[in-house]
C-alpha cells in the first residue's frame, strides 16, 4: 500500500492533511423514495411533487423497494456488510427547501455497514500505486428541494421536484491524505456506482455531491479539528477544496488562530472556501425514530438476489483484461474507466473474434489500440464526436478485421474511417479498393526506384544515419498509395539496404 507523502509547507514546518468524504449519490429510480412522483431531471418546476413530498397533513411515506435494492447492491459492490435490520430516523431542521421540517434518514441503524474500495493514484502505473480507503457506512435518505435566489428581488423561489428523491449517503473513513487520494476516491466511487447502475454519476446534474471534511495535523500526531465543505460537485473541485482548505487551516494555526468546526462553502471562481455561519446554531437535529415507518427487515433471499444481479465490477474486469486478454495494466485501466468504453470494447472484441475466427488474446490488443488511440485520433482530426451516428461498432469492426487479416494497413484503416465519417463513401468498397499488396515483386520495384531517387540519403544511411530507415519506408508506402503491406516493405528494405 502506497503511503502518501503529501505535505503542506508551513512557516513552522510540515503539516499533513486528513480527509474524509461524505458522498450523496442520487439513487437511480423511476419514482421517489417514499412517493410515486417521478424523479426525471429537468422537469417543469413542482410538476413532480406529490402530496407526500409537499408534506401535506395526513400523508404517509411508503418505501420504494427499488431504492433499497440499489443501496444493497451498492453495499455489496464495495464489499460492505449489509444490515438486515435497519431503521429510518427523522433529522429535524427548518429550511425553505424541506417542507416536512425534517429529513427522513438513517442515523442509528444504516442499511449498509463497513466496506472499502481500492483506488489508483497514478494512471500511468495502475498496479503500483493503489491505496485502500475505508467506507464507514451507507445510508438511504431523502433529498431536499431546490432554492433559486436570483429570480426575484425579495423572494426566493422553491422547486420541490427533487424533494423526496432517494439519496445514498456514502461515508468514508478519514483515510485520505492528499488531494489526489480524495479525487481518486470520488472517481472510483463514481465508477463503481455506474457499473452497478445504482446512480448515473452525472455530477454536473447534481447526481453526485461530496461534503469534504478536512483537518490538518503534524505528521503522526492526533487528528486536528475538521471543517466540512458542502456540496462539492466535481472531482477537480474536491481536490481544489482539499488544497485551499488545508492551506487556510495551516496559515490560521500558524498565525495563532484555532480551526473552528464549521460548515463551509466552496467558491470555484475565487478558489477558496468560506464559512456558512448562519447555519451554525441549527446544528441540533434532534434525531428520533420516524414513527411513520416500521424497521426495514431484509430477507436473505433479497440480499442474495441483489448479489446475483451485480455485473463484473471494475477491479475484476481490469484484472481479467490483463490476465485473460493479455492487455497491459494501463490499457486495461483505461478501457474499464467508463461503462460505455468497456461495453463498446467487449462488443467489438466479440465481433472481431467471430468474424476473424482468431483467439481473443490475439486481437484484444488491436481492438484496444483502436479504441484508445487510433480512433480517437481520427475523430479529433475529423472533428466528429464519438457518438456520431456513422461511428458504429459494425463499421469499426469491419476495419479492425480488415487490418488484422492483412487486407489493409492500419494507416489506411484510419484514412478510410475518416473518409467514411465525413463524406459519402461506402465502407466495404473503400476497404476493397485499398487492399494492400504483399506482392514482393511489385514492392521491390518501387523500393528500387525510391532508393535510386534518393541516392544521397542512401549514402548517409550507409554511413550510419540509421534514422533514415523510416524515411525509406515512408517514401515506399507513399509511392504505393499506402497499399503496400508495411511488414513486407520493412523486410525487403532491410534486405536491400543490408
Amino acid at each position: 500500500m502506497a503511503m502518501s507523502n503529501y505535505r503542506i509547507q508551513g512557516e513552522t514546518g510540515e503539516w499533513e492533511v486528513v480527509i474524509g468524504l461524505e458522498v450523496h449519490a442520487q439513487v437511480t429510480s423511476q419514482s421517489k423514495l417514499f412517493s410515486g412522483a417521478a424523479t426525471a431531471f429537468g422537469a417543469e418546476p413542482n410538476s413532480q411533487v406529490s402530496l407526500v413530498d409537499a408534506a401535506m397533513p395526513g400523508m404517509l411515506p411508503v418505501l420504494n423497494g427499488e431504492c433499497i435494492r440499489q443501496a444493497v447492491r451498492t453495499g455489496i459492490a464495495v464489499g460492505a456488510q449489509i444490515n438486515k435490520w435497519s431503521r429510518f430516523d427523522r433529522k429535524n431542521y427548518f429550511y425553505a427547501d424541506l417542507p416536512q421540517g425534517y429529513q427522513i434518514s438513517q442515523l442509528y441503524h444504516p442499511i449498509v455497514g463497513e466496506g472499502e474500495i481500492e483506488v489508483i493514484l497514478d494512471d500511468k502505473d495502475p498496479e503500483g500505486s493503489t491505496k485502500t480507503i475505508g467506507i464507514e457506512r451507507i445510508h438511504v435518505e431523502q433529498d431536499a428541494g431546490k432554492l433559486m435566489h436570483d429570480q426575484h428581488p425579495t423572494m426566493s423561489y422553491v422547486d420541490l421536484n427533487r424533494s423526496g428523491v432517494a439519496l445514498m449517503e456514502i461515508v468514508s473513513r478519514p483515510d485520505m491524505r492528499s488531494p489526489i487520494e480524495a479525487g481518486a476516491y470520488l472517481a472510483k466511487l463514481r465508477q463503481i456506482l455506474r457499473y452497478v447502475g445504482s446512480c448515473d454519476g452525472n455530477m454536473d446534474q447534481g447526481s453526485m455531491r461530496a461534503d469534504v471534511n478536512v483537518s490538518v495535523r503534524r505528521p503522526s500526531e492526533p487528528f486536528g479539528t475538521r471543517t466540512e465543505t458542502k456540496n462539492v460537485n466535481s472531482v477537480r473541485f474536491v481536490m481544489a477544496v482539499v488544497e485551499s482548505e488545508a492551506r487556510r487551516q495551516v496559515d490560521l494555526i500558524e498565525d495563532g488562530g484555532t480551526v473552528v468546526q464549521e460548515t463551509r462553502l466552496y467558491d470555484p471562481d475565487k478558489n477558496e472556501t468560506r464559512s456558512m455561519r448562519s447555519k451554525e446554531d441549527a446544528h441540533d437535529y434532534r434525531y428520533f425514530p420516524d414513527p411513520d415507518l416500521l424497521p426495514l427487515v431484509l430477507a436473505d433471499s433479497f440480499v442474495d438476489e441483489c448479489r446475483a444481479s451485480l455485473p463484473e465490477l471494475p477491479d475484476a474486469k481490469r484484472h481479467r483484461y490483463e490476465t485473460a486478454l493479455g492487455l497491459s495494466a494501463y490499457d486495461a485501466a483505461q478501457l474499464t474507466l467508463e461503462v460505455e468504453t468497456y461495453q463498446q470494447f467487449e462488443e467489438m472484441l466479440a465481433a472481431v473474434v467471430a468474424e476473424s475466427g482468431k483467439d481473443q488474446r490475439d486481437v484484444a490488443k488491436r481492438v484496444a489500440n483502436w479504441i484508445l488511440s487510433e480512433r480517437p485520433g481520427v475523430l479529433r482530426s475529423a472533428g466528429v464526436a464519438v457518438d456520431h451516428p456513422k461511428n458504429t461498432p459494425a463499421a469499426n469492426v469491419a476495419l479492425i478485421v480488415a487490418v488484422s487479416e492483412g487486407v489493409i494497413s492500419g494507416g489506411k484503416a484510419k484514412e478510410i474511417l475518416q473518409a467514411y465519417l465525413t463524406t459519402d463513401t461506402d465502407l466495404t468498397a473503400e476497404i476493397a479498393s485499398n487492399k494492400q499488396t504483399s506482392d514482393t515483386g511489385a514492392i521491390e520495384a518501387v523500393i528500387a526506384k525510391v532508393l535510386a531517387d534518393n541516392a544521397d540519403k542512401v549514402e548517409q544511411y550507409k554511413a550510419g544515419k540509421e534514422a533514415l530507415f523510416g524515411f525509406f519506408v515512408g517514401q515506399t508506402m507513399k509511392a504505393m498509395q499506402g497499399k503496400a503491406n508495411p511488414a513486407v516493405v520493412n523486410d525487403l528494405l532491410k534486405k536491400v539496404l543490408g
Partner: protein
Amino acid sequence: MSIDTATVARIASLARLKVTEAELEAMVPELNGILAWVEQLGEVDVTGIEPMTAVIENALRLRADVIGADPLTGGGIRDQVLANAPAAEHGFFGVPKVIE
C-alpha cells in the same frame, strides 16, 4: 431529568416557535411535570427485552418503483400542490429571501 428556562428557550427557537418571557416561565414547570411523569417508565426493568416497534409484529412493506401507481401519492398536480402557498409565481413557491 429536569430542564431550565434556557433549555426551553432553545427548544422553542429550534422549533421556530415565538415564545414570550412569561410563557417560557410558565412552560418550564409544565414540561418538567411531563418529563417526570414519563420518567416513571424508568422504574420498569427491561433488561433483555427487545425494543417493541409495533403492537402487532410487522415489518416495513416495500412499494414497486412505479410512477403514480397510486394517483393520491403521485406527481403532476402542481396546481394542487401550490394551492395553499401564500405566494406562487411561475410554478414556484415564493418565500422570503433566504440566502447564505
